[in-house]
């Protein structure tokens, strides 16, 4: 019998592109503790590097409302792509002596096409997330936290399970954390696939062991979420920002963006596509796309940048002329796109926008939960039309039909943000690359059309 080949050279390993000497506690709050070898930081090492100081001091010295004010003033915005103020979200959680304490849910269901940032934090630094969750749980008077992790993140599951156990044994989770009188524990919940689980209310349904159909809002999760209790759902990176804010203060956090943006803090930015050095970097929020692309070594030889998605499959295309814009929520929102997750996917001049759009819409069509008709039927229709255009078998009216979908698959016709997100690349694709789409109209069908 022949030996089993060693496939370790082909294994994927998530790695930050900044070495330890480039990262400082004062400027890289999310990643300064990471090891250059990319292995997971255990509890002892995390505590040696100031770990859990922020959480323990917060429990001892600050009131929950105080924490919420700090998060609001620091203007920590949701890093899952929505950009909603985390402090504001926390302030909308219903709390009161007459109400049951609710839940904190960490959305670690990273599936947005082109996004690989939470994986880094989950695999290599789970204690930062746990520390952020203790702070968030305290601020929201949550009784229990869940980390909703996508099922495919096996290494992250190992890191998190071990870290939760370490924290429990050290008295950092459980009853009366470090003598503070605050009880809070965390369980790891792993998913079983489906992109829609990343939608806040679908995630809650999935956590409850149901099909991941989104829920009607209101009530918002902060009023009635998991099992009807007040529930806060935050992205991994968002929660990982909380310890820094509590440790170093609001002014420090806002200063991190160094005047590049009105937003505070840093952002995990990344690049994928045909560049020389795809990867991840922690940079001030508002860093322009050009600098990030430069860090990625620029486009590969023979390729020129044609377009880019700034933060996932559900964001709109931007052009090379947009590379100098600060990449933050407000700015990118003014250019017909969204910051989304801040992980750039670049398209080369040798790649077809029509094919990419077809791929994206097939993805969204497959991942529709099927609950509402516009999404369930509309998305496959767009995918089908794009496929015909890609093959040069389109009809002139296809362009109009696609355009109608970008107008129609929006609230209130759709039940959640899935289909509207799917329409962002299509709408911007039609806006920027209409001739490329029109080139897919079959010649035969043009005859007789004057």
């Amino acid at each position, binding site marked *: 019998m*022949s030996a*089993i*080949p*060693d*496939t370790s050279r*082909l*294994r*994927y390993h*998530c790695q930050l592109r900044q070495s330890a000497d480039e990262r400082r506690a004062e400027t890289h709050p999310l990643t300064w503790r990471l090891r250059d070898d990319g292995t997971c930081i255990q509890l002892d090492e995390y505590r040696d590097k100031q770990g859990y100081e922020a959480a323990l001091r917060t429990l001892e010295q600050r009131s929950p409302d105080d924490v919420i004010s700090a998060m609001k003033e620091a203007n920590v915005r949701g890093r899952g792509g929505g950009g909603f103020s985390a402090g504001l979200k926390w302030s909308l959680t219903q709390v009161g002596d007459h109400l049951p304490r609710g839940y904190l849910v960490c959305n670690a269901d*990273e*599936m*947005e*096409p*082109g*996004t*690989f940032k*939470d*994986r880094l934090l989950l695999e290599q630094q789970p204690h930062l997330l746990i520390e952020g969750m203790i702070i968030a749980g305290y601020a929201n008077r949550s009784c229990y936290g869940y980390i909703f992790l*996508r*099922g*495919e*993140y*096996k*290494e992250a599951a190992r890191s998190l399970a071990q870290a939760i156990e370490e924290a429990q044994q050290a008295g950092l989770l459980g009853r009366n954390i470090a003598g503070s009188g605050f009880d809070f524990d965390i*369980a790891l*919940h*792993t*998913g*079983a*696939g*489906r*992109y829609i689980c990343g939608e806040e209310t679908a995630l809650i349904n*999935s956590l*409850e*062991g*149901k*099909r*991941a159909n989104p829920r009607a809002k209101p009530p918002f999760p902060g009023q009635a979420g*998991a*099992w009807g*209790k007040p529930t806060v759902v935050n992205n991994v990176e968002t929660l990982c920002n909380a310890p820094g804010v509590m440790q170093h203060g609001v002014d420090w956090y806002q200063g991190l963006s160094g005047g590049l943006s009105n937003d505070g803090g840093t952002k995990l930015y*990344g*690049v*994928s*596509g*045909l560049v020389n050095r*795809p*990867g*991840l970097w922690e940079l001030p929020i508002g860093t322009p796309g050009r600098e990030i692309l430069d860090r990625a070594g620029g486009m590969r030889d023979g390729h020129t940048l044609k377009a880019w*998605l700034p933060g996932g*499959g559900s964001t709109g295309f931007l052009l090379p002329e947009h590379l100098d814009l600060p990449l933050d929520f407000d700015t990118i929102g003014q250019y017909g796109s969204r910051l989304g997750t801040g992980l750039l*996917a*670049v*398209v080369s001049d040798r*790649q077809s926008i029509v094919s*990419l759009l077809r*791929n*994206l819409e097939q*993805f969204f069509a*497959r991942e529709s939960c099927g609950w509402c008709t516009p999404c369930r039927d509309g998305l496959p229709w767009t995918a089908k039309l794009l496929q015909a255009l890609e093959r040069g078998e389109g009809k002139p009216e296809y362009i109009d039909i696609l355009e109608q979908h970008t107008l129609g698959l929006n609230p209130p016709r759709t039940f959640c943000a899935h289909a509207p997100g799917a329409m962002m690349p299509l709408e911007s694709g039609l806006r920027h690359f209409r001739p490329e789409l029109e080139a897919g109209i079959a010649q035969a069908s043009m005859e007789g059309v004057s």
Partner: protein
Amino acid sequence: MADTSLARRIATDGDGFELHAEDRQAMLTERAHYEQPQAACIEALKIVQRRHGWVPDGAIVAIAETLGVGAGDVEGVATFYSLIFRQPVGRHVILLCDSSSCFLTGYEALSEALRERLGIGYGQTTEDGRFTLLPVCCLGACDRGPAMMINDDTFGPIAAEDLDELLEAYP
């Protein structure tokens, strides 16, 4: 046409599924993490799948009984999630990422090479029962696309030339 409803199949079918005592215990442990027992059903399905490779009809009923929830609810969940398999799969499951970043870095050529090498399409299992091929949502390995998973292992970037060696590691 034969009645293929779940109740009918389970009533008559002889798959003779028996829940392993350890698995039952693991499900009950999971149940304790949640306010209501149904929340443990996705994990329960995964527990069954870890032992059997897939989720036979009898397991749906066994899970429902163990957790004290309706079999219909468990089946509804089992058929919703893409990583729960309601029919037998091969010894090794290949998940090939088909999302945009992998699409931009060579997914289509890899997909074609892989299907040709295995002689199957998506959702199918090789005749020798060794591999099942499925598409998967963005694997979050976009900096090293095209990416794929085989069982619990993630690989990337993978070129068509790597496939022989890679597949050989999963006998």
